């Protein structure tokens, strides 16, 4: 292909992302006066196809690169990023980041991890499915179509669909710092989901099911995804409001994991040192019932939240966060750890344009002894939550009030669907009131939980 424009001379060549380039950038920054720094580079290829009512609706394909730089001048720092990976653009990035880093305040806690904390090797956690790179688009379309048609054919009341989607992403992460770490890893993610719409007596409901895995072969089959989505939407038909009252509330795994997510935020070093958590000063104290044990483990092979090293080059590891109700560890990166007088737990998360922040890896509520059926059977009158909407959670106080939909439990059985109600309480009490934990844990998301029963919450309806 010939390009006739004279502008081509001026256009800088795009560079490949490599560990060598990262080192080169750090050297250049040092020459400009930076005392230390680190570089994160991410490269990704992504694809999705959505089908609706048997027809392809959208196909999207993309390639992206991003480069992020953090520089320190002593103890002051700043970050910069660009998606334009050319020499010219990198020069500007180094210059701009230096200017910003000189302007921020000297903060004794800021800085890179100590060299001895850094990962010594990059573990192979089986995060990428290279074989599935060659999966043809036709096959991806077929999977999405099959998931949707399975849902549509499942029951005549399923009359419409918001669509089904197959997606995949391959990415590569490089991290290098001036304290001596340099490493990279690759990952992949595959997803299959469908959102059927059911209709009965003039009222519509939609629900979804999805499967997300790092390995294509571990995705649920399209029939499983479609059937699960169909069952979920059908059970919502005919939903009604219930009267306001205090009752036991059972969270299915899909909603229980959001509770565990609120806890992850409350034990994050960022929230703690800022005074923005309801769990300040609770280390080694009882914060939940003894049915509650919570683990953060970044080393589970092929799990979504796994990675060999964190956003500052520390090896990830497995740690108990809550042990039989007692808070045993916070989630920390280097900065929040120093603020709290503790070492980093290897939970620094990094996106290209931002300084490190704290995030869980694979964060889950350990399974208990009860089957989900036994948990439901233990409730005389109560609410089984299948969907939560809204943002009514106050991380400072633990106050909790969210919109919910699900099933009413009567005499130990799921009796009828319920909607347009809220559930409310305070997370401090809710965790103390976890009475039963299910044996149905599947770590398929970064934050996961089995079925959970809370002995008492306020349901507001009529």
């Amino acid at each position, binding site marked *: *292909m010939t*390009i006739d*424009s004279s*502008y081509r001379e001026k*256009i800088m060549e795009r560079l490949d992302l490599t560990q060598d380039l990262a080192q080169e950038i750090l050297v250049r920054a040092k020459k400009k006066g930076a005392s230390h720094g680190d570089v994160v580079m991410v490269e990704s290829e992504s694809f999705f196809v959505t089908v*609706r009512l048997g027809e*392809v*609706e*959208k*196909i*999207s394909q*993309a*390639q992206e*690169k*991003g480069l992020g730089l953090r520089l320190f001048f002593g103890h002051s720092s*700043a*970050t*910069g*990023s*660009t*998606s*334009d990976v050319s020499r010219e*653009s990198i020069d500007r*990035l180094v210059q701009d*980041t230096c200017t*910003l880093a000189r*302007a921020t*305040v000297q*903060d004794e806690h800021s800085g890179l991890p100590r060299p001895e904390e850094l990962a010594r090797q990059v573990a192979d956690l089986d995060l990428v499915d290279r074989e599935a790179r060659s999966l043809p688009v036709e096959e991806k379309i077929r999977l999405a179509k099959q998931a949707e048609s399975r849902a549509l054919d499942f029951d005549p009341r399923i009359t*419409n669909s*918001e669509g089904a989607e197959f997606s995949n992403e391959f990415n590569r992460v490089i991290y290098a710092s001036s304290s001596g770490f340099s490493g990279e890893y690759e990952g992949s993610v595959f997803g299959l989901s469908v959102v059927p*719409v059911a209709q009965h007596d003039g009222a519509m*409901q*939609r629900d979804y099911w999805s499967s997300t895995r790092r390995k294509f072969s571990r995705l649920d089959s399209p029939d499983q995804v479609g059937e699960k989505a169909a069952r979920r939407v059908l059970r919502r038909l005919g939903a009604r*409001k219930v009267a*306001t009252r205090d009752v036991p509330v059972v969270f299915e795994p899909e909603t229980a994991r959001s509770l565990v997510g609120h806890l992850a935020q409350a034990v994050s070093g960022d929230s703690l040192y*800022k*005074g*923005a958590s309801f769990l*300040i000063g609770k280390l080694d104290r009882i914060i939940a019932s003894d049915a509650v044990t919570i683990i953060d483990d970044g080393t589970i092979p092929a799990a979504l939240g796994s990675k060999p090293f964190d956003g500052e080059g520390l090896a990830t590891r497995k740690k108990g966060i809550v042990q039989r109700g007692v808070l045993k560890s916070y989630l920390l990166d280097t900065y929040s750890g120093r603020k709290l007088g503790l070492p980093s737990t290897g939970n620094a998360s990094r996106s290209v344009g931002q*300084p490190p922040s704290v995030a869980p890896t694979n964060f889950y509520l350990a399974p208990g002894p009860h089957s989900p059926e036994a948990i439901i059977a233990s409730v005389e009158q109560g609410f089984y939550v299948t969907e939560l*909407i*809204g*943002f*009514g959670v*106050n991380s400072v*106080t633990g106050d909790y*009030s*969210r*919109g919910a*939909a699900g099933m009413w439990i009567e005499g130990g059985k799921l009796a009828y669907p319920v*909607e*347009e*109600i*809220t*559930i*409310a309480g305070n997370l401090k009490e809710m965790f103390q009131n976890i009475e039963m934990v299910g044996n149905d844990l599947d770590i398929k998301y970064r934050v996961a939980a089995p079925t959970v029963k809370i002995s008492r919450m*306020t349901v*507001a309806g*009529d």
Partner: protein
Amino acid sequence: MAQDVIPARLFFDQRFGVNSRDLDKVLARALEQRADYADLYFEYTVQEAVGLEEGLVKNASSSTSNGVGVRVLAETKTGYAYTDDITIENLEVAARTARCIAQDRGGFAPAPVGTAKGSPHDLYPLRREGSDLSLDEKIGLLQEMDRIARNSDGRIKNVFASLAAQKKIVLVASSEGWVIGDVQPLVRLNVTCIAEEGGNRQMGSYGGGGRFEFRVLTDNRDYERYTREAVRQALLNLEAGDAPAGEMDVVLGPGWPGILLHEAIGHGLEGDFNRKGISAFSNRIGQKVASERCTVVDDGTLPGRRGSLNLDDEGTPTRRTVLIEKGILKGYLQDRLNATLMGVPLTGNGRRESYAHIPMPRMTNTFMLAGDAAPDDIVRSVRKGLYAVAFGGGQVDITNGKFVFSTSEAYLIEDGKVTRPVRGATLIGSGPDVLKRVSMVGSDLKLDEGVGTCGKDGQSVPVGVGLPTIRIDGITVGGTQTSQ
């Protein structure tokens, strides 16, 4: 405005060597497989953010991103490919990828909906390049906010203040032969205070912004007002009691409580959901969906507003669309694909988060027009209920119409008087039903301060809302106090 076409077009030409001959070639390639329409969306965004906590400006960041998306439409199908490496070679590859969508098309040929020749708007009040706050002035501004907050009350224990300024240059080239561009500024200033008294710790937040320069916020001393509001809210929450639970009459204050409209009806009126027949508002044009006191509009043409744009992200000029007029459902919000398929005019609501996203129908600034009731009379009319003046976020299930939004400042109303403050609670209702319960509409329409971000299908876009004081006869309040 035409004046923006030249800079955006020149910018991409000079920076990436993309001239109009190349664009024509790529668009022709994109249309090859009997596609109906193709467009290219070029975007270049620079952003600077500065943050203060614990009295110190510890963080500053700057980012640059650029990319191009190639879209091909064929009947109901969209092919999309994007890259952050803007070269003609990559554009051609993207065009080939995107057009594959048109391969298995049927016989249906939608009528063209018309073209965007230029924008009648010039909505962003900008001074000369380089006249905005310097980095040092921005740092000084955050430090001043910290000082104001801490000096105002000893119970304020921590202050987080942050500002972000973005400039986005966009260029849309269409297979209908037009090229149009825009340079879109967006600034935002936020402050959160944490107050503590006897082990009780509470938070208050406030902020504002819009499509203008930071200097606007300093010239008007808005930063001072934001800070005092955050302080007031944090201190007020120290005294707040448990919120009530159950259905009751609710008075919403003016401004940001307009998030009610965004969640309860706005999303449900977006063209994609209605074309597919999966919205609780599908096939209801001309029907009564609200009390006759309610007239609701979506208006992307308000100067300087966060939700405003000269052009939507498909190059269509924005406009004012009446959604509900005196209680009757009048119209949907459209992007190009859905307007074409539904055979209705474009409304300038085709928006996307960035070049990495496919456009879809989105709101701009959504608000209810003022009525004639005095706000005080509205509060006085309620015997027992809730007066909610500030909210956090909300969400809606567009298919069954159930929506929520959560208070961050609310009070009990007892015998027509505002009494005690109560903790945050989520309100839940049904979109097609809630506006029928609006029995009083105040004369005090107010738009929000400019902090709203709307999420849909994984895409975030800036939006605005507005509301006069209104009374809703019965909505479920999700507190913990079950008195009845």
